[in-house]
Structure formats: structure tokens, C-alpha cells
């Protein structure tokens, strides 16, 4: 069996539209230093660094790990660069954990970032490889038809997305790192915003953020402070173009969840998990992933959202931090989900802490809803 791995430090930057006061190196270093401080360690205590981000075209820096080695104290050490589309933040955590679980290192620093102010993500997402058609739609245009199909299949009423948009932003008011903080937000506020990609309104989509997130991962022998223990890790990928692929509830997501639940000994995710940080960049992805991840039966996810079960005071809070809808430094967004899950079971989530959280799910997805990365962390040793 693989070695035990724990999260012993978490660091985040305040997510915002522009961080003009720091370079990319300054941004990732800020998160890394905070994670090290949380663990009571310095760069000298780190054996290896794993960095993740979304496409290099976003900032126009190719393979930026070369440039960021110095800022992250990696010189003289092994350094890896992960890229698995939108799920990359989650994958970065998993590659870091793998180095501990495989017995290669004692302490690994994982960092993910995006500095969207130095780029134009929709442009970068709309260029295309030679000989293939470009949709020139960005992510919202790509996912909107999948959402409409979900609504058609389940008969979900049109206001469900609005409920998620409000709930996550209310949670964000309790998270000092969140980008979007809209006091007094309610359904009317969301419904008054322009329709971007039917049925996604402006406030039902994620912001463009600058930000970085870092974690210090440790072997059992090297734990300092308060650990969040890793109970299960899984990645799954499926082709983007495959006849018969269900893009609304992808098989890779179901398989990935089944794998991570099996490792953690979970048979009833809604009952046995205390909180979930799930990659919801468009409001409707909450009910969709509730079903894909087995928190609700097929066609029932929207009812769970409507009932308030996923609110901070519900029986299974989703995205207590405010989620991707409240802060989206793209490449870091997955790692933030994994880190927030760890903060919850360490009892360090501050105002958005779910009382007594013992087990939490971190989730990320990417590409055409085809790449999935998940982990389950717990307050107790597995």
C-alpha cells in the first residue's frame, strides 16, 4: 500500500481582478510563503516543488516552471509542471501527493496560479490547432448547451442556477480570500444581469481572477502542526470527441468519484462527507455534479440545491468558500478546492468553517468536461 500523506500547510493570495503590485513570481511566492508559514517551515524543509497552471497562452510564458524555479526555492531540487486543463489545480495536488505516497519525498510544495490580468483567457481558449475548426466561444459558450440539455432531461426549473449563484456569493462574504464579494446579493441581483450564454447570466459565471494557492504536503513522519490526512486520490480522463459520450454526466467523473470513495471507504457521499469543494464555474454545474458525484440520484440534483441542503447551514455544504463562482484564477481553481477541503477538516476555514467537519471532498474538472481530479481528506488518519 502507498504511504500516508497529509496537508500541513495552506497558503492563498487574495483573489482579485488585477494584482498589479506583483509579478507572476511574486504572486506564486506569496502563496508559497503563506503555506510554509502555516506549516511552520521554510523553503529549506521542502524536497520538491510541483507547479500547475492552465494553458501557457494565458500569460504568454511558455513552461513557466523554468522561470519560477527561483521564486519557489526550487533550485537544486526536483520541479514538475502539471497541465491537465481546468482540472490542473487538482492534478497538481495529486502529483505532489503521489511523490509522498510513492515514498520518494517527505515534504512537497505544490503551487498553482493564474494571472488573468496579463492575458485574455477567452482569446487564448478560442485559438485552435491547425486543420481544425475554432468555435470562438470560450468556456461559457462551450458549456451552455450541456446545461440546456441537463435542464431538458431533468425538467429543472430555470431559477436553480440563480439559487447557486446567490448561495456561493453569500458564502464568499465569509471568505477573506474570495474575489467576488457582493453584500446583499439575492435572486433579483442575479436575474438583473445580462444573459451571456443562455441560460447562463453574468452573475452565474465565474470571475477572471489573479491568484495563487499553495500547499505543503508531508509524509506521516514529517508532519508538523495540524494535518489533513489524504484518504483517497483519483484522476480520470475520457476523449473529448466520442460518439455516445455523455457530456452532461461524464463517465470519467462517475468513475473518478467511485475510485476515490472506494479508497476512503465511503458508500453514501451525502451522508458520510461533511463538506465538498466542487469545481462549479457556471452555477448550473452544482446540480449537474451533485448527480455525477452520487450526492443525488439522476434527475434529482436540482432538488437538492433547491432544498438548501448544499448551503452553509445545510446537511451537505457545497463550496463553503464561495467556490469557483467567487474566485477563478483558472489554473489555481482546482487546487483551491483541494486546499479548502483540507482547511475544513483542519478546522481552519475561519468564518466559513463547517462545524465539526471531519471528511471533505476536493474536486476539479477540465477540458470538455473530460478531465477529473478528486481527493478526500480527513481529520483522522486513514
Amino acid at each position: 500500500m502507498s504511504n500516508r500523506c497529509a496537508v500541513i500547510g495552506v497558503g492563498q493570495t487574495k483573489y482579485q481582478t488585477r494584482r498589479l503590485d506583483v509579478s507572476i513570481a511574486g504572486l506564486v511566492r506569496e502563496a508559497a510563503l503563506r503555506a510554509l508559514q502555516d506549516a511552520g517551515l521554510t523553503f529549506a524543509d521542502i524536497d520538491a516543488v510541483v507547479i500547475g497552471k492552465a494553458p501557457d497562452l494565458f500569460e504568454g510564458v511558455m513552461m513557466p516552471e523554468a522561470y519560477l524555479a527561483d521564486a519557489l526555492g526550487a533550485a537544486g531540487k526536483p520541479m514538475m509542471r502539471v497541465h491537465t486543463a481546468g482540472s490542473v489545480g487538482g492534478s497538481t495536488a495529486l502529483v505532489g501527493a503521489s511523490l509522498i505516497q510513492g515514498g520518494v519525498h517527505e515534504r512537497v510544495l505544490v503551487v498553482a496560479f493564474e494571472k488573468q490580468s496579463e492575458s485574455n483567457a477567452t482569446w487564448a481558449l478560442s485559438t485552435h490547432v491547425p486543420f481544425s475548426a475554432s468555435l470562438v466561444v470560450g468556456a461559457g459558450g462551450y458549456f451552455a448547451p450541456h446545461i440546456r440539455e441537463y435542464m431538458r432531461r431533468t425538467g429543472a426549473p430555470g431559477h436553480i442556477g440563480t439559487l447557486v449563484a446567490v448561495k456561493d456569493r453569500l458564502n464568499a462574504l465569509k471568505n477573506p480570500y474570495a474575489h467576488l464579494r457582493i453584500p446583499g446579493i439575492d435572486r433579483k441581483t442575479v436575474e438583473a444581469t445580462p444573459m451571456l450564454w443562455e441560460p447562463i447570466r453574468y452573475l452565474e459565471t465565474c470571475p477572471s481572477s489573479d491568484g495563487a494557492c499553495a500547499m505543503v504536503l508531508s509524509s506521516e513522519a514529517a508532519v508538523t502542526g495540524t494535518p489533513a490526512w489524504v484518504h483517497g486520490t483519483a484522476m480520470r480522463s475520457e476523449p473529448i470527441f466520442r460518439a455516445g459520450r455523455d457530456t452532461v454526466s461524464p463517465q470519467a467523473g462517475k468513475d473518478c468519484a467511485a475510485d476515490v470513495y472506494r479508497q476512503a471507504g465511503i458508500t453514501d457521499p451525502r451522508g458520510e462527507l461533511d463538506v465538498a469543494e466542487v469545481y462549479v464555474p457556471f452555477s448550473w454545474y452544482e446540480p449537474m455534479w451533485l448527480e455525477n458525484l452520487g450526492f443525488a440520484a439522476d434527475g434529482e440534483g436540482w432538488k437538492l440545491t433547491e432544498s438548501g441542503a448544499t448551503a452553509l447551514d445545510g446537511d451537505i455544504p457545497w463550496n463553503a468558500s464561495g467556490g469557483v463562482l467567487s474566485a477563478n484564477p483558472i489554473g489555481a481553481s482546482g487546487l483551491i478546492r483541494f486546499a479548502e477541503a483540507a482547511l475544513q477538516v483542519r478546522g481552519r476555514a475561519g468564518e466559513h468553517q463547517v462545524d465539526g467537519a471531519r471528511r471533505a471532498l476536493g474536486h476539479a474538472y477540465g477540458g470538455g468536461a473530460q478531465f477529473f481530479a478528486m481527493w478526500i481528506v480527513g481529520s483522522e488518519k486513514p
Partner: protein
Amino acid sequence: MRDVAVVAFAQTTHTGHDAGLTEPELIGPLINDIRARSGLRTFGFTCSGSCDYLAGAPFSFVSALDAIGAWPPISESHVEMDAAWALYEAWVRLQHGDIDSALVYGFGKSSQGDLREIMTLQLDPYYLAPLGLDQVSFAALQAAALAADRTTLDEIVRRSRAAGRANPHALDLPEPMAGEFEVEPLMPYDIAPITDGAAAVVLAAGDLAGELCERPAWISGIAHRIEPHYLGMRDLARSVSTADAGRVAGSGKGRLDVAELHTQFSHEEPILRAALDLGADTIVNPSGGPLAANPVMATGLIRIGEAAARILDGSAGRTLGHATSGPCLQHNLVTVMEAR
């Protein structure tokens, strides 16, 4: 550590020009080839390496998943690095003990853009990239720091190109001819050629390796190290990170029959030979090396594959595969393999 071996290696017939194939078209037949060679249809883990900037589009690895037929969904990851690091990630994953096989592949078509300028975008975007220093120019700084003898470099190129002409996968490049400097002190032929291609390796752990092939190339050590980015922070005439990675991988613990080195420029060979303390009895780049075929993002993986192939075919007992990344050998990975 758990015993892991290279049990199969496959590569495309690399071309010095765009042969009109998309990346998935390049990879499809290769994956069929490696499946046939390894005898495995499915793998416990899959990991690949590629670079969006070569295709000039984001997510160039996404369509590769279609080519490998990732259905039912597979446990899979990707590094935006040379696929040698994908092999490293897969080796780490196999250490967990719950899976026994991994597929690793890498691909690149550097014919599609201006590699020399693209590599500039790898530099610090605030202080270095705006200076416009291109890949060949910063390599020339390193060659100058080394003060390498022209006759030695010419001989390296002559030997590499001759070996490449004998390798059906490498390019057919002529004997180096006198001419003008590309960037002094580098001649045009000191630079690895623009190449399109892909490569794949299958790793197997424990008993499975022995079941799949007669003479697995057991990985006795694998390690990598990165150095500071700024060229002024390093002694460019030496490769400290290669020496460190080699030490951790145990390269000096026995005689090396073959070393496949990721030399994108001829002057890198003496630097790497010194860092790894290679003796005269170690044959360097019998495949021709990157100076005879350089499908960027697969080139490092091919070094490991070629070094493993000498063990698989019984012609060598202990070999080394080296891969590099970043400007002027900033980041280096060393894999030592042996027959048992």
C-alpha cells in the same frame, strides 16, 4: 523502491518537415505499435508530455486522448514538459504498489513554428524575454563559456549524423560542411534539427515486467534537479544539476555501456559527459541523439527509450538516459537502467 522497468519503446519515423499529419494522426499508429510491442491493451496509468506553444493553441494534449482511445475512462495525467518527466511521474505512480503498468508518450511538431523564437517565451517575461534573446543565442553564450574546441564539436556532429543515418527513425543529414557561424561560436550544424515526431514507452513493475519481456530494462535510479533560471547565476560551462541527478540516480555505481544524452547543441555533449563523469568506454548517443532527430517534447523520452532498447535487445547491460529542459541545460533528469 519498487522495481520498475521499461518493457517496450516505440517511436515514429521522424521527419524534418511537416508531413501533413495532425498530432493525433502522429500518435495513433505509435500507440498501436507500443501496444503490440508490450502486449498490453490497457494500462494502470497513462502520462504524456507536450507543449501548447508548438501547436500554437491551448490544450494540444486534449486531442491526443482521442488518439489513444481513452475509453472506458483512464487514469491519466499530463506534464507541460518533455515526456521524460511524464515517465518520471509514471514511475512515481507505480511506486504506490496498486497498479503494475503505465503508458508514457510525448509528441511535438516543431516544424509548425519558429522554435528559436518560441523558446524565447520560456524566459522570465519581465526581465529576459523582452530582450529578445533567442534559443540559439543563449546556447551560444554557453558554448562560449565552455570555450569548446571546434574540432571536437565538428567530430560530435559528424558522429551523431552518421549514427542518425544508420537509424531508420532519425533524419538523414549530410556531413557537416564549412560555412558561416549561425551565432558565434555555433555553426548551423551544431544545432539540433527541426523535427516532427513522437515516442512512447511502457513501464511495468515487479513480476509483470518479466512476464511481458525477456530482458526488461530495470530502472535502478531516476532523479532530476532544476537550477536557477538566470544564466548569470550559473557556471554555464558546467551542469551541476545533471551531476546531482546522476549522483542520486547512481550513474557512477557501475560501468555504463551506453549513454543517450539530450544534446540540443553539440557543445552540450562535453558538458554532460563531464557532469556524468562518462568514461571513454561509454558509447554516447548511438542513435544519433537529438543532433540527428529532435522532436521537441519527445526527445528526452526517446533518450530513455533508446537507452532502454539497448538492454531490451541484449546489446548492453547498463545504460543511461538523460533529458533536459529550460535554457542552457537548466533542468536535467537522469535515468539509469540495467539488465538483471
